[in-house]
C-alpha cells in the first residue's frame, strides 16, 4: 500500500500560508540539509536515490547536477521549469496551487546542493494566479529570512525570482526556457554546449521540473535508500504524480509509486470511463508520446515499462479516449498544436508540423488523397531527431502512432467525406 508523500498535505486548508506549512513539518528538511550535509553529499544522495526528472525526459537528476563544472568562476543558476504546457499535463500547476512552500523548500535544498545563489522559477504566462501564489510564498519566506542573505542563519544566500512566460510551449524545452528568461524569443539553442556548462547568461545552469525538485527534500530527510525502495524497480524510484484527464469518471492528479499500472489508474483510481463507454486508446504521458491501444494498458506507469511498449512516461499526463472519438480529429488537433508551437528555426519542424496539420485537416474534412497516409508517415519519420530540439519528434511520434494503430479509420476518412465515428 502506497502512502502519499508529495501530496500528503494537499487537503490541508491554507497550506500556502507559511504557518500552516511549518506546522506540518515544513522547512525542517532545508534546515537539516544546511546543517548536516555538504552540498556534495546532497548531490550524491540524489544520485543514489535514482530520482529521474519528472518533466518528460526522465534523465537522472543527480547525474545532471554532476555535470556542473567544479571551480568555475561564474555563478551557477537554478532554473525551475514550471512552464507546464504539454497537453494533458497538469501536475505542476496542482503542486503550485496547493503547496507553494514545498516547491520553495525543494528549490532551497537543490540550490544549496549545486551551490546556486540565484534561482528562477519560469512559470507559464497563463498561470497568473499561480505566479501570484509563488510570489506571495517567496515574500513570506523572505520575511522570515528563509530566503535572502544567510538563510536560516546558515552560511548560504539564496534569491528566488518568478519569471512569467507568455504563451510558448517551446519554453518548456531547457534552452528555450533560458532564452526566454533572457528576454529573447524562446528558440532552443544548439547543443553542445549544454546548459550545465553554458546556460543562463552563459553560466553553468541546472534546469529542473517542479515535481522533480519537491522530491529532493524528502530524499535528504529520509535518505536515498528509502527513496530508492519506493517502487519495485531500481531504475524507477520514488513517488510519481499522474494527471489523468479525458473521458474518465474522476479525472485529477494522483500520487503513486511507479508500480501502478495504466489499467489500475484508469479503472480503479479514476472509476473507469464516463458513461461506461469502451476504451479506444490512452495517451500515457502527454500529447507528445505514442498512443496505447486498450489491449496495451496493463503496463506499469514507469519510464522503462512504457518504453518497452514503444511509448513514454513523458510528463505522466494520461489522456483517456473512449469509443466514439474520431482519431483523425484527435490527430489533427495534436498536429495543430505542434504547428502552432514550433519555434520556426529548423525547416523539418517548421514545415513538417505545418504539413502534418494541413494534410490531416484535409483528411478530416474529407478532402484527403490516397497515398497521403504514407506521405504523413514519411514526413513523421524524417522529422524525428533531425532538429535542434525534440519538438519535431514530439509532433511526429504521436501522429505516426495514431496512423499506425488506427489506420482503418484514417483510410475510411480518405474513401468518403465525413466521419463515421461521430
Amino acid at each position: 500500500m502506497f502512502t502519499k508523500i508529495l501530496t500528503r498535505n494537499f487537503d490541508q486548508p491554507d497550506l500556502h500560508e507559511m504557518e500552516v506549512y511549518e506546522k506540518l513539518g515544513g522547512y525542517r528538511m532545508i534546515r537539516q540539509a544546511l546543517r548536516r550535509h555538504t552540498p556534495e553529499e546532497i548531490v550524491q544522495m540524489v544520485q543514489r536515490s535514482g530520482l529521474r526528472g519528472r518533466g518528460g525526459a526522465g534523465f537522472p537528476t543527480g547525474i545532471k547536477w554532476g555535470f556542473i563544472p567544479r571551480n568555475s568562476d561564474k555563478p551557477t543558476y537554478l532554473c525551475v521549469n514550471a512552464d507546464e504546457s504539454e497537453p494533458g499535463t497538469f501536475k505542476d500547476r496542482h503542486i503550485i496551487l496547493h503547496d507553494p512552500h514545498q516547491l520553495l523548500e525543494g528549490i532551497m535544498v537543490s540550490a544549496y546542493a549545486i551551490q546556486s545563489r540565484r534561482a528562477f522559477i519560469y512559470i507559464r504566462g497563463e498561470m497568473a494566479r499561480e505566479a501570484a501564489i509563488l510570489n506571495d510564498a517567496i515574500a513570506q519566506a523572505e520575511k522570515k529570512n528563509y530566503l535572502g542573505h544567510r538563510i536560516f542563519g546558515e552560511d548560504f544566500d539564496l534569491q528566488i525570482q518568478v519569471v512569467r512566460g507568455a504563451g510558448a510551449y517551446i519554453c518548456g524545452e531547457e534552452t528555450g526556457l533560458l532564452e526566454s528568461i533572457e528576454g529573447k524569443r524562446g528558440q532552443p539553442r544548439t547543443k553542445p554546449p549544454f546548459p550545465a556548462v553554458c546556460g543562463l547568461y552563459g553560466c553553468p545552469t541546472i534546469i529542473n521540473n517542479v515535481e522533480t525538485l519537491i522530491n529532493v527534500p524528502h530524499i535528504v530527510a529520509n535518505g536515498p535508500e528509502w527513496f530508492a525502495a519506493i517502487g519495485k524497480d531500481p531504475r524507477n524510484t520514488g513517488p510519481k504524480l499522474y494527471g489523468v484527464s479525458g473521458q474518465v469518471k474522476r479525472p485529477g492528479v494522483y500520487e503513486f509509486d511507479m508500480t501502478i499500472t495504466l489499467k489500475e489508474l484508469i479503472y480503479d483510481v479514476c472509476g473507469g470511463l464516463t458513461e461506461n463507454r469502451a476504451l479506444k486508446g490512452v495517451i500515457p504521458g502527454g500529447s507528445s508520446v505514442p498512443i496505447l491501444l486498450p489491449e496495451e494498458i496493463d503496463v506499469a506507469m514507469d519510464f522503462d515499462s512504457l518504453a518497452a511498449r514503444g511509448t513514454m512516461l513523458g510528463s505522466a499526463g494520461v489522456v483517456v479516449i473512449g469509443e466514439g472519438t474520431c482519431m483523425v480529429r484527435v490527430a489533427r488537433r495534436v498536429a495543430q498544436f505542434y504547428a502552432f508551437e514550433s519555434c520556426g528555426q529548423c525547416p523539418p519542424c517548421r514545415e513538417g508540423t505545418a504539413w502534418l496539420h494541413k494534410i490531416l485537416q484535409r483528411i478530416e474534412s474529407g478532402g484527403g488523397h490516397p497515398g497521403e497516409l504514407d506521405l504523413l508517415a514519411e514526413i513523421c519519420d524524417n522529422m524525428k531527431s533531425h532538429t535542434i530540439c525534440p519538438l519535431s519528434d514530439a509532433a511526429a511520434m504521436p501522429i505516426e502512432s495514431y496512423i499506425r494503430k488506427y489506420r482503418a479509420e484514417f483510410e475510411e476518412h480518405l474513401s468518403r467525406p465525413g466521419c463515421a465515428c461521430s
Partner: protein
Amino acid sequence: MSKVNLKINGKTVQAPAGSTILEAARLAEVDIPVLCHHPKLANLGSCRICLVEIARQPNLHPACTYPVFEGMEVQTESPRVVEMRKFVLDMLFSERNHHCMYCEMSGDCELQNLAYRYRMDRWSFPSPHPHMPVDATRKYFLLDHSRCILCRRCLRACSDLAANHTLGVKNRGADTMICADMDLSFGESSCVSCGTCLEVCPTGALVDRRSAYMGRTAEVQRVRSSCAACSLGCGVELVVRGGQVLRVESDWDRHNEGVLCVAGRFEPLEQTREKITRPLVRRDGQLQEATWVEALDALVSGLRQAAPGGIRAVTSGAVLSEGMNEFVNFFKGKMGVPVHLLEPALAGSELAADGGLKDVDAADFILVAGGDPLASHRVLGYRIKRAIDKGAEVWLVSGKETEMAHFAARCLGLAELDSAVAHCMESRSPVVVYGADLTAREAGRLARLRGKARFIPLAPSPNGHRAQVLGLEPAAGWAGAKALFVLLESALLQEGWLQEFRRPQFLAVYASCRSPLTDQADVVLPALQWYERQGTFINMEGRNVDVHQAVEPGGEGWSVQKLFDRLSGCMT
C-alpha cells in the same frame, strides 16, 4: 594550438582543437552543403542541411556547430544523411514560392544548387504557393518573402556585421517572417541601405533592383578593386558584364570584412549626372564638342596667356595617387605654379594615422572627435557600433549634431575635449577617431594621447593623405589667378565652395561628369569614369590600396597621366 585527428568519409584529417566538423571538412576538401552558415556570421545550426553522421552517435549533428574530437569518424554523404538532406530541401521548396524560372537568382541560388546536387526531380507536396508579400519600398533592393528560407543570414549580417539591428524575425513556426524594426516597411525603417543583407542572402529573397536579371555568375566578370567614396578604401568587387558595371559587391577578405555602405555599394551606379565623354571648348560663348588636339591647343594658349604668375592649379583629393603625382610634377615641378587641394584638410598633421578597423574591434574606449563617421566614413561608423555592442564605450566630442550621437555613451562639446582625453588615458586599448572639424589647437590636445591610443583620421577626401604627403593645402582663394586648372574627376563640389568661387579669365576643368563648374569652363577635358581608372590611393590606415579598371573607357576620356604626358609635350 593542439590538433585533433579525425576521419571524414574515411579520409584522415588533422584539425585544430575546437574546430567545427565543417571547418575540418574544408581542410580535407570535403564539401558539406550549408544554407544558414556563412563564414563571416555566427553559426546557428538551424537549417539542418549540413547534418552529418558521426560514428557511434544515434543522431545526426550539424557540421557547422559540432566540435571535432579525437578519433571522430564522420560520414557526410551517407544514405541516411542524403535522405535527410532531401527531406530538408523538400520542406524548404514546399514552404513558399520557389518557382526558379521566375527568380532572378536562378543559376546562382544556393538553394537551387542543392536541389540539383541532391536530384530533386519532383514536388513531394501538392504545391501550396502561399501568397507572400514583396517589400519594394527600398530604393536599391527589394525583399521577396516568397523566396525566403528563413536562414536568418540577413538579420545576422544586419546585427553582427553592420551593427544596425534593423532586421529581425516576427511570429513563429511556419508564420515566421523577416521584418524590419517593429514590422515597418523597409522604406520606413531604420535600414541604412548598406546592402550587407543583400550580399549574404543565399536565395532570391533579397534582390538588387538595378542588376536584377542582367547576368548570372557564369556570365559576369569580377574585378577586385577599392571603393574610393571615402578614405576607408573598402575592398570591393565590381561585377561587370558587356562593358557595364552591374553592381558593386564587397571583398570579404579586406579590412571592411564584407561590409560596405550605400555610398560605396549603390550610389556610384546611380549616376544621375551627365557624363562627359568628349573634350569641350568654349567658342562664341558656348561650350562645344572638340577634338583632343583642339582642346589641348585651347588649354595651352589659355595657360600661356596667364603665365608665368597668373596660373593656379587645384586638385580634388579624390584623384588617385599616380594622377595626383603627375599633376603636381607638371604644375609645381615644371611650371612653378602653386598647387592646392580642393577639399578641406585635417588639422593636426602631427597626429598619426596608425589605427585601423581591427583596432576598433579590440577597443574598450573610442573617442570620436570633430567628425561623424556615420555620415562621412560609414563603414567605420558601423564598426564602432559593433564595438559598442561588444561593450566598448564611445565618447563623442563635437560642435555639431551627428548621427553618432545616438550611440555614444557621452556627448561633449569641443570645450570639454580635455576630460575625454583624460578618460582615454585611463582606458586599456583606446582608439581616437578625429575629423576635420578640429582646429589645430584641439588636435594638439589630442596629441597627448600619442603612444596611448591608436589614431584614425576621417580625411575629408579619399586620397587626402596623399595630398598631405605631397604638401598640398586647401586653397585659400585664387583672387589673383588669371588661369585656373581644376583636376576634378568625379568629385562633387560643395555648395559653399561654388558660391564663393569667382571665375578667373581662363578656366580648365578635367572632369568625368557635368557640373556647375564645367558649365563655366573654357576648356573641359573628359576624365575617365570611376570604374575606368586604374591606380592606387592611401587609405585611412596609411596603406596603398589598388583601384582597378573594371571596364574599357567608353568615351574619349584620358587618364590624368596621359593628359599631362601630352600636355608636357605641348608646353615645351
